């Protein structure tokens, strides 16, 4: 009986995951989707507990309680600006869990047919890389470790050597069952994960988190082959596919290939200083917030371009005030969100949603770019490289070819900025010198609140 019931429950659980993800395709149904997926998980757990091989329920329930409590605390306390770190942490834990399950299976059985052995090694390898790589990503995002790429000579050759070492120890382990060779496999894989994330710069973290997200799914998938469980294979591949799609979107948003992100170490300091040439003939215009009121009041459409700087300054609530005020005066207000704004895919949208900014006023790059020509005022807050027109025409620019928001095509551009310092990529922004650009210097939150009080 249980041979039939359990797999059917697993099937239901997989269906719930797929339905849940499908409901995520619209903000209206997304919350329901999250619930659907969590029911899927509950079903999977219940089905597993029905297995009559299980003798010790007490340890299981204790572990479930501990894990749930920790998870709930983390989920309740995290700040929305820290979401990337939390996701990195969760990715890492998922990888570690897969690693442990594969290792437990290794201890339990010892000698395996060649294919199962192969999947165990794969599971250990992906699980370890996900775990240690996510941990480094977490440290970088949390600011415990500095974001700049850490590289050393011959790093790629050394990584190659480590991969060879994993292969050799696997073959040895296969020929000598019950040997401790897999401990070496774990150690080397953990080292690989660390070395894989260390050389990647802070600006490329969205790509890394997406990729590690994919890995955490693939690790679960490999574990599914180890314990021959379809529920793991299906769910793992769903997550794997999701991470791959997001990685691809992030890479396209920066006009880089995944290999360039992983191996080029972009963002190291020597690359920055070379590009800082300011033409002394170029001049900028700068206004005080109160000088801008007339321009805002005569506008029909205002587009706000938020960058991570806005979130750091905690200006999103003030920006929402400004939006409501302008809308009260009959001005259409839209937000333009670049794919790599924020520190992870969709991060900026969550930060704006937290300030109660309605999601239907947020526009993607493709939707908003044709609109800039009919826009009277564009307000750039804490964004820099994603609005640099050099990306369109300057073949010497490091960001040439990157899709940007064409803010320079609007009537007037206000750029809110602290100082004239260059952005994350360390590139001079020619937008600031355009005739229709006006700089407003100061803290983003202060400036926006001054704008609000002037407009009242």
């Amino acid at each position, binding site marked *: 009986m249980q041979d039939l019931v359990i797999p059917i429950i697993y099937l239901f659980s997989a269906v719930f995951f797929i339905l849940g993800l499908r409901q995520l395709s619209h903000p209206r149904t997304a919350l329901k989707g999250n619930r659907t997926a969590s029911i899927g998980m509950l079903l999977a757990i219940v089905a597993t507990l029905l297995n009559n091989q299980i003798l010790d329920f007490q340890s299981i329930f204790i572990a479930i309680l501990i894990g749930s409590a920790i998870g709930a605390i*983390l989920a309740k306390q995290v700040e929305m600006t820290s979401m990337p770190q939390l996701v990195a942490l*969760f990715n890492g834990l998922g990888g570690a869990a897969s690693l442990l399950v594969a290792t437990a299976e290794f201890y339990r059985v010892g000698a395996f047919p060649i294919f199962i052995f192969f999947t165990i090694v794969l599971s250990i390898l992906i699980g370890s890389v996900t775990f240690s790589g996510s941990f480094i990503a977490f440290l970088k995002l949390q600011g415990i470790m500095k974001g700049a790429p850490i590289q050393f000579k011959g790093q790629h050759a050394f990584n190659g050597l480590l991969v060879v070492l994993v292969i050799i120890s696997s073959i040895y382990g296969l020929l000598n069952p019950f040997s401790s060779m897999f401990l070496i496999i774990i150690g080397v894989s953990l080292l690989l994960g660390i070395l894989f994330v260390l050389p990647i710069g802070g600006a490329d973290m969205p790509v890394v988190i997406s990729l590690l997200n994919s890995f955490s799914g693939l690790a679960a998938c490999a574990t599914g082959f180890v314990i021959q469980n379809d529920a793991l294979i299906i769910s793992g591949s769903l997550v794997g596919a999701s991470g791959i799609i997001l990685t691809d979107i992030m890479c396209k948003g920066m006009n880089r290939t995944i290999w360039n992100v992983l191996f080029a170490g972009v963002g190291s300091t020597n690359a920055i200083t070379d590009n800082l040439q300011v033409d002394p003939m170029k001049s900028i215009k700068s206004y005080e917030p109160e000088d801008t009121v007339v321009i805002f009041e005569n506008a029909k459409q205002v587009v706000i371009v938020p960058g991570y700087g806005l979130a750091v300054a905690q200006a999103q609530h003030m920006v929402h005030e400004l939006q409501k005020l302008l809308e009260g005066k009959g001005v259409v207000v839209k937000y333009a969100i670049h794919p790599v704004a924020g520190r992870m895919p969709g991060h900026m949208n969550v930060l704006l949603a937290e300030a109660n900014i309605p999601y239907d006023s947020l526009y993607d790059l493709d939707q908003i770019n044709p609109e800039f020509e009919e826009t009277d005022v564009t307000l750039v807050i804490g964004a820099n490289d994603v609005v640099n027109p050099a990306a369109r025409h300057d073949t010497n620019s490091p960001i040439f070819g990157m899709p940007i928001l064409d803010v320079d095509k609007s009537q007037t551009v206000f750029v809110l900025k602290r100082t004239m310092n260059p952005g994350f990529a360390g590139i001079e922004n020619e937008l600031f010198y355009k005739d229709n650009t006006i700089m407003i210097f100061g803290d983003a939150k202060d400036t926006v609140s001054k704008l609000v009080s002037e407009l009242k």
Partner: protein
Amino acid sequence: MSGQLLIEIYVLVLALFVGFEVISKVPPTLHTPLMSGSNAISGITIVGAILATGSMPGTISATLGMIAIILAMINVVGGFMVTGRMLRMFKK
């Protein structure tokens, strides 16, 4: 190669296709919740962890399994809860 294995490979390939189809329809606005939610789903490893813990009490495998349950459960509960928290903020 056994028949069982072949079926598993079928399942893997088909699930990957379903994944690509379903997830490419998620709008950029929801990419962060997608990530944390899919993260929670990757906690499915808990199935393996429960089997390892419960079926061989007192062995190394059971101890490893128990740690794996804790980690996977942090992933599952934390992931679904934080996703819910984010999604409740999205208003029209």
